[in-house]
Each structure stands twice: as C-alpha cells, then as structure tokens.
C-alpha cells in the first residue's frame, strides 16, 4: 500500500493516521479536512466555550488553542485543510475534492464526522439560533451567552442538558425543552434522569417535558420558540441540540451502504449496498452508524487503521462503549448500553451527596451501568461487562 488518504481531520482521522504509522505504514499519508483547522478535541471545546461564563475574544482564542489535539512531529503527513471531499470513486479508488483535485489512494479512511441536525421545518434559522458541533459554532455560542438573556435549549440528550446547565452558570434565564417526560430518560433511564432533573431544578433551569419545538418566531432575529402545544417561549437565543447527522453527502452514489451513517463490519471495513466490504476502505468515528462518543471514535480509529495494514489479521472492535457528561459540577459516567435495558437497579441515589449508582439489565443480563462520584464502582461494572459475552448491539 503506497498511499492512504484520510478523509476527515478531526479526532478519529488523526488517531487513525497515528495508528497507521505505529503499525508500520511507511507510504504517503494525506489528511483532508473541510475546516481550516488542525485537529481539535470536542469535549474541551464545549467546556471552554460554555463553562467560563464570559465571552471575551482573547479568552476564546486562548481556549481555542487549548483544544488542539497534539500531532506527533514524526507523523509525516500531508494536510489538505479547508478542503472538502466531494466525491468518491470506490472502484477507481479516487477521492474528489471541492477544488476539483483528484486524490488517488490505495487505502482510504472515511472519518468525515457528523454535523448538527437541524429539522427542515425550523429553517431558515433566524439570527440568535445556535447549534454546537464545530469550533466556529462554539465560538458563536460562547459570544451569545450574555448574562440576563433568555435562552431556550431544545433537545433531550446529553448536549442539550450540558448546554442548559452551562447557560445557567453563565447567568442566563434558561428553559430546556425535551421530547420525553424528562431529559436523558431514553439515554440513561428513570433513576439517572430523575437525578439530573433534580440538578437542573436546583440550578433554576426550567424543564418543559413532552414537547417539541415547532417554530422559531421573529423573522430575521429570534423572538420566541413555539412548541407543538401552541406555547410560545419568549427567547433572545435558542440552541438546537437535536442530535447529529453523519457527513455522508459526498459518498452518495459511491456504492457505500448509507443508512444512519456509513455501514461497517466489526473490523470497520466499509460495506457496499450488497453487504460486501469495499476494497481498501475503512471508516471511524461519528460518520459511522454507531454511537457517537469520544472513546468510541478513538477505539474505532485504531481498529480501522489496523484493518488497512493487517487485513483479516486485525483484531475486531470489541470494546465496551463508555461515555460521560459534565453538568452542574458533577460528571455522569456510563458504560455499556443503558439505552437498551429493560430493567434498571438503583444501588445508590444520593442527590445531596452527589452520588449515584445504577445498573442496567436486559433479559436479566447486565448491559450497562451509570454512576456519579462512584468511579471504582463503574470500573467494577465495566470489568464485568468486558468479561461477559457483552454484545455491542
């Protein structure tokens, strides 16, 4: 293999490139990124954008550089940044770029990530409406978090709750709109979502449950968010945290199976629409049809890179998923798949002491755990999951 192209220059793309070198790939390595930035890290991006409580440009700049991912000096890669991949010829083994260039490859890593989901019914977005995914979006949101403003955050997942909590810290008047009874109910179940609801309540965040945003009023600039029951929430800013859409537009017509992201096998080989692996193509990170979490992207990137170098001899992905969420001064951590449980058991629930331990079961078998302030318990549950024949699905 002489030349490997990595489409996507974020966490997964960089880690794939590093693993390729660590596994002995000595050929040409080209990374293509649509943003004009070297790889940066998303979790601190959110933290630095939201947790500081101020919006001074100088601080934003200092924080932005702090989110840069370190690139080893000996990576020996060519970086094509601010350049989008717009097409793939999977059989001719060529990636086409927005500027018309064509990049032939022997191996391709697809790591183009995902973009914030914006429902078509809410577009065009008036000024004052934000999403949060990229560094530029984080900077824009940060500048908008001005104390005293009324913010409506829409979304029942981790990002929505984190943004709501952070906007509260910044001194905004915050309403969180979630489609279910409570935020995070679908992600971590009854007990943990109840716990987070308690934290939201203590922080003065209003949660409107069982509702969706239907209309963004105000024309050029947002004045209110209209809900599906006709309620109007007056707002200076709104943040849409409605999940992510894999960046797969450039792969249309390539023969790759694209349902909810690039479909892969357990070695991250990219599958064609007929279910067979395409030659020399792997994928990693949020562009795949898997769980979009930090550790997942890192693990996938390593497996994908080893598959390109070693083929069938590479170890398949076998990790237990894990993720975390920082909000209201605590960190909720989870392992496994709490979302697929049919039963949960609460070993500890201490809101005042900020301690939580919940295990998740399916057909009587352990499938996940979530904790706050109980790291050793989480590690113990994680070990059990790894030792059991825990299946990712």
């Amino acid at each position, binding site marked *: 293999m002489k030349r490997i192209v990595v489409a996507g220059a974020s966490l997964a793309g960089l880690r794939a490139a590093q693993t390729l070198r660590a596994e002995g790939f000595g050929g040409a390595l080209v990374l293509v990124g649509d943003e004009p930035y070297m790889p940066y890290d998303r979790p601190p991006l959110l933290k630095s954008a939201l947790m500081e409580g101020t919006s001074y440009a100088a601080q934003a700049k200092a924080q932005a550089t702090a989110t840069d991912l370190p690139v080893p000096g000996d990576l020996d890669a060519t970086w094509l940044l601010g350049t989008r991949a717009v097409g793939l010829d999977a059989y001719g083994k060529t990636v086409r770029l927005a500027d018309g260039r064509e990049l032939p490859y022997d191996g391709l890593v697809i790591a183009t990530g995902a973009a914030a989901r914006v429902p078509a019914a809410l577009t065009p977005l008036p000024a004052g409406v934000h999403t949060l995914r990229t560094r530029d979006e984080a900077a824009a949101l940060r500048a908008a978090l001005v104390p005293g403003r009324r913010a409506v955050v829409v979304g029942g997942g981790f990002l929505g709750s984190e943004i709501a909590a952070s906007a509260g810290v910044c001194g905004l008047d915050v309403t969180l709109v979630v489609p279910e009874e409570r935020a995070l109910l679908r992600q971590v179940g009854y007990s943990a979502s109840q716990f987070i609801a308690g934290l939201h309540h203590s922080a003065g965040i209003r949660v409107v449950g069982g509702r969706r945003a239907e209309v963004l009023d105000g024309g050029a600039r947002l004045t209110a968010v209209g809900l599906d029951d006709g309620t109007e929430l007056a707002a200076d800013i709104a943040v849409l945290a409605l999940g992510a859409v894999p960046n797969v537009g450039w792969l249309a017509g390539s023969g790759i199976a694209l349902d909810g992201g690039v479909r892969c096998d357990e070695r991250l080989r990219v599958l064609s629409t007929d279910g067979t692996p395409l030659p020399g193509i792997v994928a990693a990170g949020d562009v795949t049809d898997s769980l979009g979490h930090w*550790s997942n992207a890192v693990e996938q990137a390593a497996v994908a890179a080893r598959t390109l170098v070693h083929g069938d001899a590479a170890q398949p992905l076998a990790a237990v998923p894990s993720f975390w969420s920082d909000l209201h001064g605590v960190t909720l951590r989870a392992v496994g798949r709490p979302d697929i449980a049919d039963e949960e058991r609460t070993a500890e629930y201490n809101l005042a002491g900020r301690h939580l331990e919940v295990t998740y079961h399916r057909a009587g078998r352990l499938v996940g755990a979530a904790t706050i302030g109980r790291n050793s318990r989480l590690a113990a549950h994680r070990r059990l999951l790894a030792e059991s024949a825990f299946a990712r699905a």
Partner: protein
Amino acid sequence: MLRITVDMNLCESHGQCVFAAPDVFAFDDDDYLVYEAEPSPDRLDEVRTAAAMCPVRAVAIEGVSP
C-alpha cells in the same frame, strides 16, 4: 523497563486507563486514581491503549510519544 506517569493535575477520573489496563490502573476506596509506576514490560500494549484512551492525555509512557 516500562515507566509511566499520570499528571494528576490533568486527570479527571474518566477511568479509561482503568478500563484498558486494570492490572496497572485502579481507583482506590476514595475514588482517586492509583497506578503502578513501573509495571511489567509485558503490559506495554495495555498501557499504550490506556494512554491513547485518556481523554485529557494525562498518561505518559517514558520514551513513547502519545
């Protein structure tokens, strides 16, 4: 010899190192990270994974770039 250090100013107790190399890293009874600074060299692969998986890049292996 395999020698590791964890920058405890960076560590946020994400536990990814404990997951990756449970014989080298652990949480103590007070939930603080503890680790063996000079583990057996046959743990190198696990320790490498632990360093790669740390979200705050607090784990360093002597002589090995991150």
